[in-house]
């Protein structure tokens, strides 16, 4: 019988590792509540990991599927009548288009930041046209549960909700005034994407409330620009923008509470 020290070593390591795991599993696992930061990071990491790690595999499978379909189509078409060849050609084109659509859809769904900007009504999406909002050296940015996490407790009577959207650790609520038709958009995101603010011809104010620093981009009265308040709290970035009075926006901003 051939003896191999390395093979025995492998067995020994296997036994040792298993004993170690058994010991951990048999002992009382520490009552640990994972920090919110950890859970957010893990959620992001795992979702990105899933997306990036399997996309190549998927793309490969799609390509194989497409190639085989085309080959199959050509093969069959060549062996049947001219009429059938035409039909098969159309079918292959349709299949290829479907596959292309599938791939494209996958790419679009991964383009999170673009989607977010579009959905939230923050129209400042073109980097070249906009200045990046920064708090000293920190660029405000964000990420996301598909449930409402934050909500303003205060809302003027004449406003009612007209739009709600909740993504992965992000959300948007739109309100409209019954009086003047002004809309207020409230938006929150976690800290992994960047928020751009158009601050051209807009005055920047900085103020503080209960230890939170707020930045207000106040539009001139009567101008067609919107005012915006941005702040950062508990790993989230928040924004409220509207043509409504900045005082109302401030009151709403101060009233935003975590509801989870």
């Amino acid at each position, binding site marked *: 019988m051939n*003896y191999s*020290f*390395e093979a*025995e*070593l*492998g*067995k*020994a*390591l*296997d*036994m*040792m*590792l*298993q004993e*170690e*795991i058994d010991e*951990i*599993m048999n*002992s009382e*696992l*520490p009552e*640990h509540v*994972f*920090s919110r930061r*950890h859970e957010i*990071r*893990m959620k992001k*990491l*795992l979702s990105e*990991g*899933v997306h*990036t*790690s*399997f996309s190549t*595999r*998927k793309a490969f*499978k*799609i390509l*194989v*599927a497409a190639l*085989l*379909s085309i080959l*199959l189509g050509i093969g069959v078409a060549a062996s049947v009548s001219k009429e059938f060849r035409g039909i098969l050609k159309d079918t292959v084109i349709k*299949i290829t288009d479907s596959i292309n659509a599938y791939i494209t859809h996958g790419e679009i769904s991964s383009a999170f930041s673009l989607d977010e900007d579009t959905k939230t009504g923050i129209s400042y999406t073109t980097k070249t046209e906009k200045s990046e909002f920064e708090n000293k050296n920190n660029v405000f940015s964000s990420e996301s549960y598909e449930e409402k996490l934050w909500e303003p407790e205060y809302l003027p009577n004449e406003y009612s909700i007209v739009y709600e959207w909740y993504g992965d650790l992000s959300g948007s609520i739109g309100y409209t005034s019954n009086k003047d038709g002004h809309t207020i958009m409230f938006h929150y995101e976690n800290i992994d994407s960047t928020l751009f603010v158009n601050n051209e011809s807009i005055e920047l104010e900085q103020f503080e409330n209960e230890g939170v620093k707020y930045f207000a981009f106040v539009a001139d009265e009567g101008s067609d620009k919107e005012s915006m308040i941005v702040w950062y709290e508990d790993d989230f970035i928040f924004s409220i923008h509207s043509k409504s009075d900045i005082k109302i926006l401030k009151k709403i901003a101060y009233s935003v509470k975590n509801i989870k």
Partner: protein
Amino acid sequence: MLLILLEMLDGEEENIFLKFYHENKRMLFSVAYKFTGSEHLAENALQEAFISIIKNKDKMLLMKGEELKRWSVVIVKNKCIDVMRKETKKEEVSFEDEKNITGAVTEDESLKRYEAETIKKYLSGLDEISKQILYMKYLFGYSYKEISKELNISEKNAEMKVYRAKNKLKEMILKEGIITL
């Protein structure tokens, strides 16, 4: 055929990481906490470990059940070493501070009588880093290149560390063996 092939795209592939994380996070946290003694460092190690696990998805997908669990424990412990090293800001502490092994009889011939059960007793006397190296090389079949990536060291260095760890074990076995015989 297309339908069959497209079916391959679906299934549970995408849930593997999430499922694995949720099923094992407490156990893996316990491993990390036991190693680092700090909840904060343990969470950091867990995050780093999953980055590594995702990077090594091909390896992961070949494993199932207990093997996967054992592998992830090794990864978590590697990352514990990393985060602790960063925390103490000491470079290559345990790796580089190892004394050179001299005078040991390291011929495999001399070790022929040692079975896994016996070797295991001596393994427990090794330092954590040596054990980690041996786990990767001899339990999970990592190449030197893979070890070097996992530990952020050069391939040559990885090879040397495997050699040292193995030699250290052999030295312990033979030394003890001579005494007890």
